[in-house]
């Protein structure tokens, strides 16, 4: 079942005279429960793609629908309503509120949906057990490590069981151990909760945890790799190879 569908999306910046096309006629589909990575060089349009897919930015042309609803046609209020029910976010710099404790941060999406307090507590326990952050629930963000912060951020994304989670370079600020730890947790939750994940990354190792890698170049899909029955190492090697072709210097005459 297709959960996210983008057809012929364009995104341009600037005015008529000085126009930059960041996305041009890009098509993308994400299935329910799928873990997709988006890779590409700096400036290839990865983050813009994620922004328009996640309704933070609007496309210039084309349609994006999540669970059959066209998000381009929505008003600001509807959009916010939609975001709070169906989407989850994980960011490179965690985006936790410094003035709130870990638990308060994680419970935010539930309070905005006005979930009953008791139910909220149960949900918090489930997700914090899964991510191993139950024991730091009452700490402030500046008292915990980067890995813990990112797991907090992940818990916040998962707690309200959204249909799709967008992750922007979630491992960008983590050391390699914390990174693989987080990715393991993410793919566990992905299977356990059957939530789709769209992750932007430039780290091949991070990408190798997903089921499909989409390579972007100059605002278009360059190629896609499926993991299929491969082991993670084999998939990783594939990704490296493709990245080499994609980013390599081309000697055309």
């Amino acid at each position, binding site marked *: 079942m297709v959960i996210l569908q983008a057809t012929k999306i364009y995104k341009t910046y600037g005015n008529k005279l000085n126009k930059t096309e960041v996305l041009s006629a890009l098509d993308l589909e994400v299935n329910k429960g799928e873990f997709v990575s988006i890779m590409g060089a700096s400036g290839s349009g990865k983050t813009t793609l994620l922004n328009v897919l996640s309704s933070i930015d609007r496309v210039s042309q084309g349609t994006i629908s999540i669970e059959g609803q066209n998000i381009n046609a929505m008003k600001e209020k509807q959009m916010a309503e939609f975001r709070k029910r169906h989407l989850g976010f994980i960011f490179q710099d965690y985006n936790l509120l*410094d003035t*709130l404790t870990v*638990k308060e941060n994680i419970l935010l999406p539930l309070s905005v949906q006005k979930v009953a307090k008791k139910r909220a507590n149960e949900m*918090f326990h489930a997700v914090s057990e899964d991510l191993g952050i139950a024991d730091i629930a009452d700490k402030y963000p500046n008292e915990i490590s980067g890995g813990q912060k990112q797991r907090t951020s992940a818990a916040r994304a998962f707690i309200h069981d959204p249909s799709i989670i967008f992750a922007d370079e979630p491992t960008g600020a983590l050391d390699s151990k914390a990174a693989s730890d987080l990715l393991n947790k993410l793919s566990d939750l992905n299977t356990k909760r059957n939530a789709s994940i769209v992750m932007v990354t430039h780290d091949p190792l991070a990408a190798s945890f997903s089921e499909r890698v989409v390579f972007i170049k100059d605002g278009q899909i360059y190629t896609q790799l499926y993991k299929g029955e491969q082991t993670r190492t084999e998939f990783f090697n594939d990704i490296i190879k493709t990245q080499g072709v994609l980013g390599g210097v081309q000697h055309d005459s």
Partner: protein
Amino acid sequence: MTVNRLIFRNIKKNFKHYYVYIFALVFSVALYFSFMTLQFDPALDDTTGGVKGAAAIKTGSVLLIFIVSVFLVYANNLFIKRRSKEIGLFQLIGMTKGTVFHILSVENLVLYVGSLIVGIFLGFSMSRLLMMILFKVTGIQDVATLRFSSEAFVQTLVVFAAIYILILLMNAVFIRRQSILSLFRVATVTQQRLKKMTALQAILGVFGIGLILFGYYLSSQLFSGMFLGNQFFVVMIAILASVIIGTYLFYKGSVSFIFNIIRKRKNGYLNVNDVLSLSSIMFRMKSNSLLLMIITTLSALSIALLSLSYISYYSVEKMVEKNIPADFSILTEHGAEFVQALEKEGIANSYETIDLLNFQVDLSEVLSMSAEEGNSLFSFADTTMLVISDQVVEQLDVAETEVYLANQSDFLNNLMHIQEQGMIVFTGEEYVYKLAYKGMEDLTVLPARATGAFPVAIVDQSIYQQMLADKDVELSTEFSQYTGVTITNREDIERADTIFHALDIDIWAGNESKYEEKMIQKQGIGVIMFIVGFLGLAFLITSGCILYFKQMDESEDEKANYTILRKLGYTQTDLLKGVQHKQLFNFGIPLVVGLCHSYFAVKSGWFLFGTEMLTPMLIVMAIYTALYSIFGMLSVLNYKRVIKEAL
């Protein structure tokens, strides 16, 4: 590009960004200059001549310099914080700290000169308006003309040059202290390290509230007669100290303490109001406790002073009415002469003459101070008081064994305890008169000048005659006779007053004209009220601005939070609601604390100033609150813009 061109460009480009700073400057200059213009205006001599108005204005101007300096230093700090990245960048590309300082100084100089010119122009126009208000409240019939005062101009220049140097010094220290790395971080690391509530903090929080309450308690006891003489001063200092320190601890600990309890009870489940107000205020109030303390204390001070001066102004008529019962009160033998003169001019009048009989008396059964043993200077058991016959008081018929008291004053009411009944014992040369006290009549029979603001006894005519014959000759008073003249037609008052002066009756001590007294009092209090009002307004605006600037700064810092929250699905309306909540606390807490402080301050000593407390005080508080909330609303508007831009 030369340094000079860089400076020029900086100013041009930053002008929009730093309007806050420029506004602060222009406003301060205008305020100060208009105040100075008034001070040096010859027209003001008429109004200040009568009282110690000049001294009041001097004190006012010193206070004004203080307020303006605090305000400008705060604005400058904000200004430099916003530019810290730029300062770091200049150093990164190889400028010395000296060059950076030079750039900043010249920029500041240009801003200062520009603001001075605009501010002086504004201040000049403002002072004309102020002058008209002044004439209105003092009741002087004069046309507000203004001249450009060069003294005021020079004074303003000197003061602002001094502030400029102060700010330069602060900037120099700032640049010297900071490394390039920390400069880049000033803008980003604004949150101080958040820590959990410690037990110490909780104790401090409770202690702070305790201190404030203790101060309030002391203030309510201040005039109850518990403290006398030297103690009095010590207690005043103690009240001030405990309230001010209490306020500081209140912001430092109590606010976070209370909010923490509320937050604990939510068990991690916060709604948008809590997220934006509770958690943010909890930490920010703590770090700004000193600033908030100053703001609160000074607002309390200005509200209290405004209330007191308004109370005086409000009760001038009543006070004079109490002190001088008739239109003209003559205590010398010129009474008859004045009445004759009035008759000659055809001014209808009625008059009464009362012989003043001073008698030895024991009032200890009826009047007492609550701590009489501490007061050796004065005893109710052995004092003297004026006695009059019930014949001169139409409303009263006193039996032979009875005595009434009259001429009560609010001032004494607050210092003395008056018993319901008891015996009053008068001692004459030969006889002792033991009379039953029947009550305190709300009457003013004699002028305060004759009674010394002490009550007067009213006895039966026959007893009065006996006492008159039996009087102690050595106890004769300064005045022996009182003539109260009442003019029948109000329109004749001014003419009568002229006669009163023409006959030189007014040069004798004790002879008073109610009309003239009211004028003098109104003028004196009017000037003081005007100065206090001006300072109060100046303070209101500066403290409002400081809070507003603080909120502007905070909104920039919290922009990232709004981005997160909007991504999580909060709508702009949700966030705005939370922000309104936050403003309610941010502006409300200092205001409410300030109002409380001033209420207790006014309550402890208002009777020294007038006869009516509640109405004038509430009027002052309502106006203050209304003006103050304007800044809260401005702040909400600013947040609205920031939230809109956040996503």
